[in-house]
C-alpha cells in the first residue's frame, strides 16, 4: 500500500530500498557519499584545501534501511546508511518544505590500504549529500549549471569548469571536483524551463553540481593529513568522545515550478530561529504581546 510514502498538503515522497525514489512524482534520489582525501602525493586535502583523490565519491552503503513513521502533525522517514551516516526526511502538516535532518559522524578513518589489503592505514574522508533530480540544468553547451547565493544576499549562476572573467584551466583534471565547489551560505538551486529544485542550509557548507540535475552539499570532513597551509595539524577533531566529531544539521528542500517558488520566508526563519526556554516542574500562563 502507500506505506512506503510520506505526504502532506504540498509534497508526496516515495521511498524504496535505495532511499528516496521520487518527490511529487519527479524521480529524485538522495545519498550520503564520501570522497577520499588526497594525501601523500602533491597537495594534501585539509583545513584550507579541498582536494578529493577521485572524481566519483564512494558509496557508504548500497542498501540503506528505510523506516517510516506517521503521526498526527508529522510524517517522516529515517534512512540509515550506517552507524555514522543517516538522514530523516520530515513532512510537517501545512509546511511547504521537506525538512532533511542529516546526522554524520564519527567518520571512520581506518581502512584497508589500497596497496596491501592486509594492512590498515588512516585515510581522510569528506562526506557529501548528493541530490539527483530529472531537472535539465545544463546550458546550451551541455555544461551543468547551479545557482548559489553570495553571502545570503544575491544569486549567482555557476557553470561547471567555467569562470565568467577568465579562462579556467583545471589542472587537477582527473578529479575536477574542487574547482566546482562553491561557498553555500544559505541556498543552492538548479532549474530548467519548467522546474526549480532549491535546498536551503542551516549553516555555511560547500556545494556544487557535478552533473546535470544534481546538487552536492558537503556536510562533514575528517582528514588525517595536514595540508601544510598554515594550521600545522590535520582537520581531525576528537569530538565529544575522542573518536571524531558527530554533527547534525538540516537541509530544507523546495520543489516547484520555475519562477513560482518562494523560499524566502524559510530562509528568514532559519536565520531568525525562535529561542526555546524550558520550565521543568511548573506550568503557568503568560501574557502574549
Amino acid at each position, binding site marked *: 500500500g502507500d506505506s512506503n510514502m510520506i505526504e502532506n498538503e504540498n509534497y508526496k515522497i516515495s521511498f*524504496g*530500498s535505495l532511499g528516496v525514489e521520487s518527490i511529487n512524482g519527479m524521480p529524485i534520489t538522495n545519498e550520503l557519499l564520501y570522497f577520499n582525501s588526497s594525501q601523500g602525493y602533491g597537495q594534501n586535502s585539509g583545513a584550507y584545501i579541498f582536494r578529493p583523490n577521485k572524481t566519483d565519491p564512494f558509496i557508504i552503503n548500497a542498501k540503506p534501511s528505510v523506516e*517510516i513513521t506517521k*503521526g498526527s502533525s508529522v510524517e517522516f522517514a529515517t534512512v540509515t546508511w550506517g552507524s555514522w551516516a543517516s538522514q530523516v526526511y520530515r513532512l510537517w502538516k501545512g509546511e511547504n518544505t521537506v525538512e532533511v535532518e542529516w*546526522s554524520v559522524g564519527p567518520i571512520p578513518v581506518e581502512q584497508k590500504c589500497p596497496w596491501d589489503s592486509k594492512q590498515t592505514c588512516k585515510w581522510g574522508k569528506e562526506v557529501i549529500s548528493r541530490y539527483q533530480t530529472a531537472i535539465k540544468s545544463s546550458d546550451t553547451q551541455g555544461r551543468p549549471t547551479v545557482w548559489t547565493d553570495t553571502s545570503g544576499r544575491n544569486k549567482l549562476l555557476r557553470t561547471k569548469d567555467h569562470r565568467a572573467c577568465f579562462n579556467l584551466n583545471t589542472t587537477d583534471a582527473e578529479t575536477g571536483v574542487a574547482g566546482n565547489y562553491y561557498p553555500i551560505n544559505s541556498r543552492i538551486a538548479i532549474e530548467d524551463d519548467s522546474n526549480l529544485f532549491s535546498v536551503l542550509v542551516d549553516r555555511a557548507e560547500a556545494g556544487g553540481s557535478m552533473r546535470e540535475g544534481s546538487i552536492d552539499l558537503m556536510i562533514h570532513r575528517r582528514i588525517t593529513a595536514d595540508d601544510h597551509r598554515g594550521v600545522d595539524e590535520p582537520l581531525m577533531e576528537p569530538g*565529544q568522545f575522542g573518536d571524531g566529531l558527530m554533527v547534525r544539521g538540516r537541509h530544507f528542500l523546495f520543489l516547484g515550478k520555475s519562477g513560482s517558488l518562494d523560499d524566502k520566508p524559510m530562509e528568514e526563519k532559519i536565520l*531568525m530561529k525562535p529561542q526555546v*526556554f524550558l520550565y521543568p516542574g511548573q506550568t503557568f500562563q503568560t501574557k*502574549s504581546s
Partner: protein
Amino acid sequence: RGDLAEFKLASAFGVGQHHDGISGTEQEHVVSDYTRQLHRGRTACRDITNEVLEKDFEASKGAINCEYRNVSICADTETAKEFTVGVYSPASHAFHYHVRVPVNGSSYDVTNQVGEKVPVDVVPVSDNTKNIRRNRGFAKNELWITAKTDGLDFATFNVKETSDGLDFATFNVKETSGNDVVTSLT
C-alpha cells in the same frame, strides 16, 4: 551588571570573528577556547533574558535552555511530569516552529496560552540519535510540539503527562524478494 553580561557575549563574538574562527582553520585548542568564550557569553546573558521574559511576558522564574535537545538530551524534561515550554520569536511575523523535547512518557496533554489543546506527537528516540548522544541522555521518546509564534512574541505551552498510551505508528520498508518493497506495521 546587565551591561557587563552583554559585554561578555559581545566580546566573545568579537574574538570569534577572527578569520580562522569564521573559516574553521584554527587549531584544535583554539576551537575549544572560542567555544568556551561563547558559552560563557551566552550563560552570562541568560539571567538578563529571563528577567526580560518575566517582566514583559509575566513568565515564571527558573527558565533553562537545554543545549542538546536536538540529540534528545535534557535531564530536566526527561524526569518532569509537567513542564512549560516557552518559544520567543525574534522575527517580525508569524512562524510555525517545531519544538523537540526529550521525554520518557508516552502521552501528553499540551495547551497553549489561552488553554486550547495543541496537537503533538510522541516519537521514539531513533537508534541514530541514541548512537550520537551515547551515555549522555536516556530519554526514550521525543515530544514534538508545533508552536505557532507571532512576531516579537513569547508563546508558552503547558505540558502534562497523561497515561493513555502511545499514538504513533511505524512502518519498516524492507526489500525481501527482488525489487518488491515489502512493509510491516510495527
